[in-house]
């Protein structure tokens, strides 16, 4: 009765140690899409900024893309798979209810029985995962956490839906969160607003889709674009400001702004609403990649590093927002 429980609590900070992405091989230009939605290349570019997107083939599964992205992230971080203590996967397109994608990914990567689980936080999932990973590292629950955002949104996209068919895309992004002497991940500002769950959602549950009167069909994703735009730009600008304040910095301290690549019009309007200094580089990976939900932020960071627009040690503001509605933002140092 009098024994004291020993805990793993440690005193250390966390940061992103490495990042890696996987972009499916197939590049789909607007020209391949316009006929089905009675649209034009110019209309899609004006409305979304998107020129091309990537769609996965049969072999580029949620797990395969995640393993590829994770291998790059581990190499970038300079650690081996056996050093990974936990794998957190954010996805809404792993079409198994159970088991998780994370357990299979942890096994295929060759981790030493790392803890593994999936989370459902849609387009905010990567920022949710980074927050969980940072807390695990700070709390001593794991030394290195692999956070993966991965989607095959093309599987759940209605190719004739004028409001989503040109937006959604596929890909995977992974980051290693590990211990650090200096703080590398600021406090998360996050939340949910379930009152607006209808704005972005799966059209129907699987049971209704499978037993539909006309035969089985995919339960496609739907989105009310204008309402989402308004929420994303103005409510999320407030959340982004809170994350900057919570990290104890000012917008002038930022080097990079990496919002979820939802739509370039949202990114542009949010950057205007935030009044970010002209020196801040804003990620625009969406032009070539489309909207990959949970994968979009790590993919955009990887691109900024590859193109030299961001450097290791830069201060970046990340913000993810999406179906739920859910959102999360934090200031991090680029690995």
């Amino acid at each position, binding site marked *: 009765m009098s024994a004291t429980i020993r805990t793993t609590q440690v005193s250390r900070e966390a940061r992103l140690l490495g990042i890696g992405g996987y972009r499916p091989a197939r590049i789909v230009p607007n020209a391949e899409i316009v006929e089905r939605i009675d649209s034009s290349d110019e209309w899609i570019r*004006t409305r979304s900024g998107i020129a091309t997107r990537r769609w996965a083939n049969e072999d580029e599964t949620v797990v395969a893309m995640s393993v590829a992205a994770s291998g790059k992230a581990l190499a970038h971080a300079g650690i081996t798979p056996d050093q990974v203590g936990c794998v957190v996967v954010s996805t809404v397109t792993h079409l198994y209810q159970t088991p998780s994608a994370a357990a299979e990914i942890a096994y295929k990567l060759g981790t030493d029985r790392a803890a593994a689980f999936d989370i459902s936080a849609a387009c905010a999932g990567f920022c949710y995962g980074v927050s969980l990973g940072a807390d695990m590292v700070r709390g001593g629950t794991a030394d290195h956490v692999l956070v993966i955002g991965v989607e095959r949104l093309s599987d759940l996209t209605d190719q004739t839906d004028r409001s989503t068919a040109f937006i959604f895309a596929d890909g995977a992004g992974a980051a290693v969160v590990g211990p650090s002497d200096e703080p590398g991940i600021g406090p998360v500002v996050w939340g949910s607003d379930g009152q607006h769950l209808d704005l972005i959602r799966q059209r129907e549950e699987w049971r209704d889709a499978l037993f539909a009167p006309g035969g089985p069909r995919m339960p496609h994703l739907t989105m009310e674009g204008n309402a989402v735009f308004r929420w994303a730009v103005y409510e999320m600008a407030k959340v982004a400001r809170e994350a900057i304040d919570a990290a104890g910095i000012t917008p002038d301290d930022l080097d990079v702004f990496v919002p979820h690549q939802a739509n370039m*019009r949202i990114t542009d309007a949010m950057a205007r609403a935030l009044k970010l200094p002209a020196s801040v580089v804003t990620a625009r990976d969406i032009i070539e990649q489309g909207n990959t939900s949970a994968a979009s932020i790590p993919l955009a960071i990887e691109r900024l590093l590859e193109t030299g627009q961001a450097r290791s040690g830069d201060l970046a503001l990340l913000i993810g927002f999406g179906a739920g509605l859910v959102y999360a933002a934090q200031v991090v140092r680029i690995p």
Partner: protein
Amino acid sequence: MASTEEIRSGLADIVNEIAGVPAADVQLDKSFTDDLDIDSLSMVEVVVAAEEKFGVKIPDDEVKNLATVGDAVAFIERVGT
């Protein structure tokens, strides 16, 4: 309460800032879509900026009824009083 001309002029500044349309072109008889080339997403930005500037609430359902600059000015005059 601002005059019709003051509201039109204020809206013109907003449209200019968001869509780059010359403020002088933003006249009461102009259609946001057909004459000023404001698409639905830019219209959301215009509406939010107008709400802030004039201290009014413009519900999403109402936005589709605001075809012309004159419609928007009349709505703001009506709910602003």
